[in-house]
């Protein structure tokens, strides 16, 4: 028998201040430090100092998105956010090679950013250089 525990749905508008913990940022798919790719573990790389603004910016969109999805769930039922998330997941699974300039206009339309300009567009949000990321992207692609 399952015990039905309802966790509080988060209605935060603004991301929470994450507590300062030493997190493994260089995780591989098993959740451990990936020595092959990043080298031996160092305390300096793990100690997160001044993560305040960075973590706030990185989780900003996600937090507000969660708010809207939670509201949709409470008003219309579980199917409403579920359909939206399903559509996003379908569209985000791009069959193309993970070559560097990748744009997903369908995903942009679903996320509502097809008719706005964001700082990420202006400052070149693409991740740095092909050599480091191809392995991860190919792993991701071939596991699908």
């Amino acid at each position: 028998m399952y015990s039905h525990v309802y966790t509080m749905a988060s209605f935060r508008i603004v991301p929470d201040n994450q507590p300062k913990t030493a997190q493994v940022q260089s995780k591989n798919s098993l959740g451990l430090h990936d020595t092959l790719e990043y080298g031996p573990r160092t305390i300096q790389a793990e100690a997160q100092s001044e993560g305040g603004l960075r973590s706030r910016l990185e989780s900003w969109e996600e937090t507000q998105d969660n708010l809207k999805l939670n509201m949709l769930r409470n008003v219309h039922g579980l199917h409403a956010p579920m359909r939206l998330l399903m559509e996003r997941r379908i569209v985000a699974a791009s069959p193309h090679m993970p070559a560097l300039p990748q744009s997903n206009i369908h995903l942009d339309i679903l996320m509502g950013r097809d008719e706005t300009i964001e700082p990420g567009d202006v400052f070149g949000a693409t991740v740095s250089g092909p050599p480091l990321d191809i392995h991860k992207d190919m792993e991701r692609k071939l596991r699908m």
Partner: protein
Amino acid sequence: MAATSVYSSPGFDFSNQLRNNFLTEKGLPLPKATSTGTTIVGCLFEDGIILGADTRATEGPIVADKNCEKIHYITESIRCCGAGTAADTEFVTNFISSNMEMLALTHGRKPRVVTAMTMLKQYLFRYQGHVGAALVLGGVDATGPNLFTIHPHGSTDKLPYVTMGSGSLAAMAVFESGWKANMSREDALQLVKDAISAGIFNDLGSGSNVDACIITANHTEMLRNVEMPNQRVQKEKTYVFRRGTTAWKKENIRDLIVSEDVTPVGTEAMDTS
């Protein structure tokens, strides 16, 4: 399976943060950004809005630009004056201007001042005041003339007359004693010029000339350098050296072509017509 994120990245790269924190702890100060220690004002008059600004940009104690433009374009009938870090005000106003244009094209309507204000305040709040832009936003839209002030942390005020920047107290003193409701265009323009001049002459961070912008329902007039009370005095003597002032002892001309030998290739001569 690691899923690609559906969210767009914030656009800033924090990879140097660890290094920068280490350097500041060791005592190396971060480079100073160009600031617009400024006087910017806005006031409501009978036909619309008048915005005013000085034209000095400072870099610490040094004047970086003697005649910079602080009244930025948002849309045809909305303008924004910016105080604080010059790069931040420039970027934020450009960014909001682009988004307002996209909005106008999407909806087919002229955008409103409150829209620009909301976009600005949400952006500035997201960055927790690190984007150092204190703005005076004014314009005339379908609902009438609107004047707002936006602080770097994202708070806003809707007022009939506002001042921002380091010279705001001097300018506000002029406004408080001189502003009346429904002023005429000439009176309002003179009041704005007086307020900016008060900031220019009493605040070290403001200086040079006065810019103004008059926005009415069907026309926007940009008065660049409407008053120039700090022009440089004409020098009394000329300090140009006459030709031959410096004596030269030796002249040596080296020809780049040491020897030239023309050999025609082919049977005919080259056709240079």
